[in-house]
């Protein structure tokens, strides 16, 4: 069973609406990742954090998404203005470090943009 907790499991938004997802990483894991898994099972890395600092993010994340991992609060990923192409499963994962290789995934938040 996942120890990475993601909420909500499902969300439905209209185009142009904001969509926000949250993630509580596994206890003691300082590194958090967000991936997007589309219906064709293609994974896209979006952003990762070490503690509260962004390590790396892709262009799309920089422009239309906002993400943060504040101390003592859940991490979050927010799409500012949802598009149909954003419909996907958003997976949060955590890790003990950037060089351990092993990620622990949550169950995901499935976003449907109508």
């Amino acid at each position, binding site marked *: 069973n996942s120890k990475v907790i993601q909420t909500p499991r499902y969300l439905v938004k209209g185009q142009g609406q904001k969509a926000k997802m949250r993630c509580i990483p596994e206890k003691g894991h300082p590194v958090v990742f967000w991936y997007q898994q589309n219906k064709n099972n293609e994974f896209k890395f979006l952003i990762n954090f070490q503690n509260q600092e962004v390590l790396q993010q892709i262009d799309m994340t920089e422009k239309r998404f906002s993400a943060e991992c504040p101390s003592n609060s859940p991490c979050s990923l927010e799409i500012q203005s949802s598009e149909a192409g954003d419909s996907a499963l958003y997976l949060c994962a955590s890790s003990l470090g950037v060089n351990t*290789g092993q990620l622990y995934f949550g169950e995901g938040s499935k976003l449907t943009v109508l």
Partner: protein
Amino acid sequence: AQSVTQPDARVTVSEGASLQLRCKYSYSATPYLFWYVQYPRQGLQLLLKYYSGDPVVQGVNSFEAEFSKSNSSFHLQKASVHWSDSAVYFCALSWVNYNQGKLIFGQGTKLSIKP
């Protein structure tokens, strides 16, 4: 560029039969390799991982995988499958330094078990 290829999008085997799911990778040095499983409406669960050493690694639920540097492969195997093994299986690649811990995933193989 680094990549992972799972050549079989779908595999069907009979319950109790043996299983091999194929994974080929492209990376110039020795990578970290993983197999994850995704059950319907769930996240990814780690089955096993390879970092170095013995090329045959054991995982959960009697899965094992064999790393081959010469073939750039990391095939997943199980001697006798159960109906509960029905799921999508993903091979993934990572490496030390410079990639900030990111994983490169294959396209997945959907495993169906016939009764």
